[in-house]
């Protein structure tokens, strides 16, 4: 074996090929099957897609690096299930490009934070967390409520996600900008359009309490209120494919 190596280390190209060969095995064995084995992601027929406004909120969540301190992955451990809710299923993040499972909980897990607090709570908390939770070390995000959300290019966002396999319809893509504004204007034609395209369960509200065009606060709160509400699969008892 060492004799062989004695020869190998005299040839740079052979060394390069050997390194590539030896190092690629692990990734191939562990990653490739995840795309082919059907049980990897459970079937979730009731799975909803994010509305354009919720997607804009998700992109703000990414932009601000929220995932550095908040996970969105409840592990299959008793204390986590009791603290945060049913453990996370693979299907719940199947449309997440990229996933936001996170790796650190400087703050609590957010996988099921949707509907846990009121919109007003979220808006006040994001504006300054210490107004509501004095011991909190979370940063304040006061600029969210005064910054209009960028919604003019959301159609392109939806189109790209559809290319990656997220089931957005043509109508959703065409109406993306109107739907983003409509989600914060309930009981208007635009608002009903959102309900028609994304389902009755969609949250149609003025999330930040300020009338008018959606702000970044609207978008982010809309996203947070939807977390864990895209499908009910985790709340239905022992579905196939789950351990």
């Amino acid at each position, binding site marked *: 074996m060492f004799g062989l190596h*004695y020869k190998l280390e005299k040839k*740079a190209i052979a060394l*390069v090929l050997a390194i590539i060969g*030896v*190092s*690629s*095995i*692990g*990734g191939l*064995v*562990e*990653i490739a099957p*995840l*795309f082919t*084995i059907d*049980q990897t*992601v459970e079937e979730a027929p009731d799975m909803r897609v994010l509305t354009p406004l919720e997607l804009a909120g998700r992109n703000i969540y*990414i*932009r601000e*690096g*929220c*995932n550095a*301190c908040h*996970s969105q*992955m409840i592990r299959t*451990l008793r*204390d986590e299930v*009791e*603290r945060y809710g049913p453990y*996370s*299923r*693979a*299907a*719940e*993040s*199947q449309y997440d*490009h*990229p*996933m936001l*499972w996170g*790796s*650190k*909980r*400087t*703050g*609590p*897990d957010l996988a099921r934070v949707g509907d846990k607090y009121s919109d007003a709570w979220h808006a006040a908390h994001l504006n300054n967390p*210490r107004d509501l939770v004095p011991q909190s*070390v*979370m*940063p*304040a995000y*006061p*600029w969210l409520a005064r910054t209009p959300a960028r919604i003019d290019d959301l159609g392109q*966002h939806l189109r*790209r996600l559809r*290319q990656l*396999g*997220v089931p957005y319809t043509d109508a959703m893509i065409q109406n993306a900008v109107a739907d983003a504004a409509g989600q914060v204007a309930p009981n208007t034609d635009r608002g009903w359009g959102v309900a028609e395209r994304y389902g009755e369960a969609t949250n149609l509200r003025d999330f930040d309490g300020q009338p008018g065009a959606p702000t970044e606060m609207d978008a982010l709160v809309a996203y947070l209120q939807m977390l864990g509400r895209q499908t009910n699969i985790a709340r239905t008892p022992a579905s196939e494919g789950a*351990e």
Partner: protein
Amino acid sequence: MIRELTTGQRQAALAFLAFFALGGLFLAAFGRADPIAGHGWLVLAVALISLFAVLTRYYDPEPAADRSAEYYDAPVKTGIIIAMVWAVVGMFVGDWVAWLLVNPNLTFVDQAWASFGRLRPVHTTAVIFGFGGNALIATSFYVVQRTCRTRLAGHLSPLFVLWGYNLFCLLAVTGYLWGINQSKEYAEPEWYADIWLVIVWVAYFVLFLRTLARRKEPHIYVANWYYLAFILVVAVLHIVNGLALPLSWTQAKSYSLFAGVQDAMTQWWYGHNAVAFFLTAGFLGMLYYYLPRRAERPIFSYRLSIISFWGITFFYMWAGSHHLHYTALPHWVQTLGMTFSVMLLVPSWASAGNALMTLNGAWHRVRDDATLRFMFVAAVFYGLSTFEGSFMAIRSVNALSHYTDWTVGHVHAGALGWVAMITFGAIYASVPWLWKQKTMWSPRLVEVHFWLALAGTLIYVFAMWNSGIIQGLMWRTYNESGTLAYSFIQSVEAMHPYYIARAVGGLFFLIGALVGCYNIWMTIRAAQADHVLEGDTPESAPRAALEAGR
């Protein structure tokens, strides 16, 4: 640096920079409705400043036509200086965000760029890619020339690799502050910065391979196996993990090709092996050259180097899934990740043992020479943190440690104790060699830096061990009535004293780096003032001294 280029090479540099400026202008003009325009202007500014720098020295005397009898050290010197600048920037921001966790109101400005979430990736990128990456590029240029007894294969390409790489780092950190972040951990820059890094990296690989091809030694020395593995595998990881669909060619935002569980596995296959091949393999390359040379002892065992090299190259790539225990990732992948992580201890300890055994017979030097002591402590922390890593990868341990500060402590035991210590050792060894001085300007300041760095590391790591384990236990503690005993916010409150200790430890480490910068600066100044010693050349450097009997 431009003095080392011939007129033809200066012209080529001007043409490239002009083309590059146009690229920046294109992004700035067509992307003006998007944050990408800022990066267009940044590229344009960098190109114009570089153009100006080349033009002002355009008519300087040309170098001799054949310089193969000398080493090409200008990019090494520049790389070391840039690495130290990034070290100070990265550690300053790191300590800054550490204080923000002590008191979140320390932000002072009510601006988005100053918030924790945007500053944190500036810290990680500046220390890993800015400090670590530049140190790896600079030392790899130094080591490959000495161990192959040949000059770097090219004059423009080393400069392109070094400055192009730093442009990537600059795009990355400015992007985070402007809100450009694709959220993948340790791969936050967006698609266009990623593509740029691929171009730079291919040039790096070609340069390294061509230099190896010119070697005057029949065998490729161990350090170069590691540098080669670092270059190759980082390229593969970076390309696969970065696959994404941009909104358009003139918009910064992109969507990852992967989603959910597949994305999580790809991300941690990348993330863990960025640790393996960026922060371990590359720095082991550094260790295998600088430690034996400084200790003036040959590597303890050639066979142990072979076993540990291939062990690390093979086992590490399986270990990423231990970041996803108890998640929605299929159980079999978690188990494979855990198993290989435990097996990984064998090649890791073989490397650490090989390094420590090499010091046998040179312990008096370790005692007297702070530079060698930096390397010794690095090898010890390498052994400790690889043991800790294998331990934390065990599923039941991970149930407690995951999501807590213990992970942060583990990372910093590796990053401060191993990566930064070996780098400081290598830099303190190379600076006098490169600037042709007998020693550093002040060996006593090296000593001061050593103790500051060691104290800072220990304070940091102990604080995070404590806070992590307390956090993990508080989250899972039940009271007599069978309900959870603590709310989440109580665990946040309990962290407060440890967060203060951590920030103090980080401050020690930062001050140490500043002392290092001052010492390096004074050494360079002394080199300009005093007479300099004779440098080494491809003819003079005996490599055999590094190697054990085969």
